[in-house]
């Protein structure tokens, strides 16, 4: 180990997250590989090591024998200071080698507040931030993850984006990079060639022109880059590689357990939900595959918990059979099984009893809107009756803690809708009084609200966000409407949401502000320890970026949107139709009742959607 590092580590918090050496890490002979990939997660070790996507792609990239892919995370503040002081550059955990020597830096960007950390990790690697200032082919800087559906705010910094699911795409790009390295291509040559791979978006191959009012006039591809980049997907998830030997951290991380992914996509079509649109079409894994992979992973890791991941667990058709299959293995071994993302409408007594056998946790419901009218408007198909029924079953079953999640500032929301949230909490409380098995233990009802952020590729991508002042007015209205003392109310701060809204629907001009925030010390902005709204607002002012233009402005539907070159499969016409239905408070049936012909099925060649 580097002597400088050895001297620092005893002084920082949780040093084990900076050393590597965990069980199941992949070590290769660096003399025998052709490409070294630094898989960079722009957040802490604890967050990154909890990310299933990262775990999957670490293994798929390492399945190429000419590639050694290693993990890189952002150091926490104390470690960051120590590394700067000692002149230690960012390094990869497996080998301890500086990332500046790698052939590729591959970022997984899951959320906007990670942008400054991406810049910081480039800088800590000794690399210039902007793609135009990195003339050499190597290292190539690429990025994938949800942020790639609107890559524009990070466009000047990243050489190429990988849009969609990476299991096949990442390796196709690495195959080409291997040839490029062998044959000494120029960076431009590589970028024009890689742009021909489906799902690859090379921002420097697109010219963006603007109207005087700041809106986009046109997006013009050059050097043969496609006019639209279509998201990549994996068709057959059962046949797709899944890491049954994931790395087991030697120190505590956020999700320290076996994660099984039930399906990708969502049948629901909630209009505010970006994930519900950008991850289509629906593709499920077979329960047999999941049970087998679950048991194998438990054996290989020694974990004591399994969790099932998807956007809506209750919509997994073979859920009861899957639970039976897993419980058969887990119960005798005291292994816990948890099911997040259950819906209030089809949560069954049977399922609850099954889980109760092992462990009982609190119930969380994402209700989102305070009235039936509003829930219809956002197509969140949960009724008060469903929710109260579920609560009744839960209270009868001995649960005594319920969390209700809402958004404030949804399109068409009125003050009555806001007050409706408090009423719903009262109804839940009433339900507890009627049905609770054991009232001595009391009940805890928690309401949480966040400020709605309109997202690209969702039906609300044209909508204005409510202002910070308006959000706080609604928060106060709700606070004053809550009277019961068993009801706790937490609200997210509005300012982070405003910054997120700017970045989420930003264009390339926002990049200057991101860079300035970083230059002024911004990093790990997803953490309240480090986030500074003043720093962001000042950077917007100093770079001439008007946050209201991006966050609060309603866009006409015929406006060219900065992310229009990215095709996630869903047709824009459907998004427009869904938005119109919102204004009529009209529900759309879920995909299983009636296919809306959203367009995502065109991505499938061998199977049918939700087969």
């Amino acid at each position, binding site marked *: *180990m580097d002597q400088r590092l*050895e*001297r620092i*580590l*005893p002084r920082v918090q*949780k*040093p*084990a997250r*900076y*050393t*590597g*050496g*965990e*069980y199941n*890490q992949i070590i290769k002979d660096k003399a025998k590989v052709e490409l070294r990939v630094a898989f960079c997660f722009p957040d802490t070790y604890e967050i990154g090591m909890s990310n299933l996507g990262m775990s999957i792609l670490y293994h798929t990239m390492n399945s190429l024998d000419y590639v050694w892919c290693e993990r890189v995370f952002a150091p926490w503040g104390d470690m960051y200071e120590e590394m700067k002081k000692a002149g230690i550059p960012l390094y990869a955990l497996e080998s301890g080698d500086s990332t500046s020597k790698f052939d590729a830096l591959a970022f997984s960007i899951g959320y906007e507040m990670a942008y400054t950390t991406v810049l910081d990790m480039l800088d800590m690697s000794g690399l210039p931030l902007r793609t135009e200032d990195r003339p050499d082919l190597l290292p190539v800087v690429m990025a994938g993850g949800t942020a790639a559906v609107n890559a524009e705010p990070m466009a000047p910094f990243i050489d190429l984006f990988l849009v969609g699911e990476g299991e096949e795409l990442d390796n196709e790009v690495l195959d080409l990079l291997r040839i490029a390295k062998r044959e000494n291509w120029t960076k431009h040559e590589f970028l024009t060639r890689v742009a021909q791979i489906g799902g690859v978006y090379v921002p420097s191959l697109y010219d963006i022109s603007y109207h005087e009012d700041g809106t986009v006039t046109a997006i013009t591809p050059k050097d043969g880059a496609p006019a639209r980049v279509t998201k990549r997907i994996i068709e057959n998830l059962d046949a797709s590689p899944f890491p049954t030997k994931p790395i*087991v951290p*030697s*120190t*505590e991380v956020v999700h320290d357990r076996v994660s099984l992914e039930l399906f990708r996509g969502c049948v629901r079509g909630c209009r505010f939900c970006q994930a519900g649109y950008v991850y289509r079409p629906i593709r499920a894994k077979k329960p047999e595959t999941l049970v087998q992979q679950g048991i194998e992973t438990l*054996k*290989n*890791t*020694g*974990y*004591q918990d399994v969790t099932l991941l998807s956007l809506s667990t209750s919509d997994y058709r073979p859920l009861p059979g899957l639970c039976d299959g897993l419980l058969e293995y887990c119960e005798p071994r*005291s292994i816990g099984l948890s099911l997040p993302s259950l819906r209030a409408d089809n949560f069954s007594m049977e399922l609850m009893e099954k889980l109760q056998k092992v462990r009982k946790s609190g119930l969380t419901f994402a209700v989102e809107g305070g009235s039936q009218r509003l829930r219809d408007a956002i197509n969140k198909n949960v009724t008060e009756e469903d929710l109260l029924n579920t609560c009744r079953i839960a209270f009868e079953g001995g649960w005594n803690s319920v969390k209700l999640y809402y958004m404030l500032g949804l399109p068409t929301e009125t003050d009555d809708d806001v007050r409706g949230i408090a009423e719903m909490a009262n109804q839940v409380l009433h339900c507890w009084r009627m049905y609770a098995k054991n009232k001595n233990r009391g009940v805890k009802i928690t309401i949480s609200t966040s400020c709605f952020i309109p997202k690209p590729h969702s039906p609300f991508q044209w909508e204005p966000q409510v202002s910070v002042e308006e959000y706080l007015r609604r928060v106060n209205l709700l606070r004053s409407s809550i009277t019961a003392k068993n009801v706790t109310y937490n609200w997210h701060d509005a300012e982070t949401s405003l910054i997120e809204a700017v970045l989420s629907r930003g264009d390339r001009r926002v990049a200057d502000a991101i860079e300035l925030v970083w230059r002024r010390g911004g990093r790990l902005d997803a953490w309240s320890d480090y986030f500074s709204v003043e720093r962001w607002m000042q950077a917007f002012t100093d770079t001439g970026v008007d946050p209201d233009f991006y966050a609060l402005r309603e866009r006409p539907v015929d406006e060219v949107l900065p992310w229009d070159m990215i095709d996630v499969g869903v047709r824009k016409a459907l998004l427009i139709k869904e938005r119109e239905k919102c204004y009529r408070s009209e529900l759309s049936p879920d995909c299983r009742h009636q296919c809306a012909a959203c367009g995502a099925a065109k991505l499938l060649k061998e199977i049918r959607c939700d087969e």
Partner: protein
Amino acid sequence: MSDKLRLRFSKTGRAVYISHLDLMQTMQRAFSRAGYALKYSEGFNPHPLISIALPLSVGAASICELMDFRLREEADLTELPARLTDALPEGIEVLEAYEADRKCAEIKWLQIEGRFEYDERDPAQMTEKLREFFSRESIVITKKTKRGMGESDIRPSIRSIEFSPAEKAVTLKALISAQEPTLNPEQLAESLRQLYPEIAPDFAKFTRIETYDKDMNLFR
């Protein structure tokens, strides 16, 4: 066979940064990976019956760690070390497994080795001064206790200590009190920082070598 079993293991290299609590979790998972079922406590919140003697500070290495455990079923103790080592992260190696007939409370002395690094100063000269310093009758340092700052004489906890010059460093071998009172080897360097900063090393690191009882018999 008695169901009280003991492991002797080493913790070196990158593994020295795994904290005591995390090590317990790591050990528990390693047993499971190696196919051994640990015995659990009874009660509302069952936990595996394992305990590691003399928690090691983060950053310190050891080749003589001891962990007590119980298994649900009898196991071949000769093959257990290799199987468990295969299931452990880099840097942790199980040296032997055996039935424990003595209590870890009987451990009194620890043999340690240390390395005081001096980037700019002359090791030979430092060695001289270190020998002189540690031959004092008493070495009283102030340290944080639960009740604020306290004073303590570490000299009685050092049974023997010897220094030899090395490349940009001075190495030490010492026998120090393992418990009642516990001397954290780091306090050897700390005493210099407090009482004789001129010879305080730029960096100090330690390795536990062996455990002894009060009569200086090997403890197993």
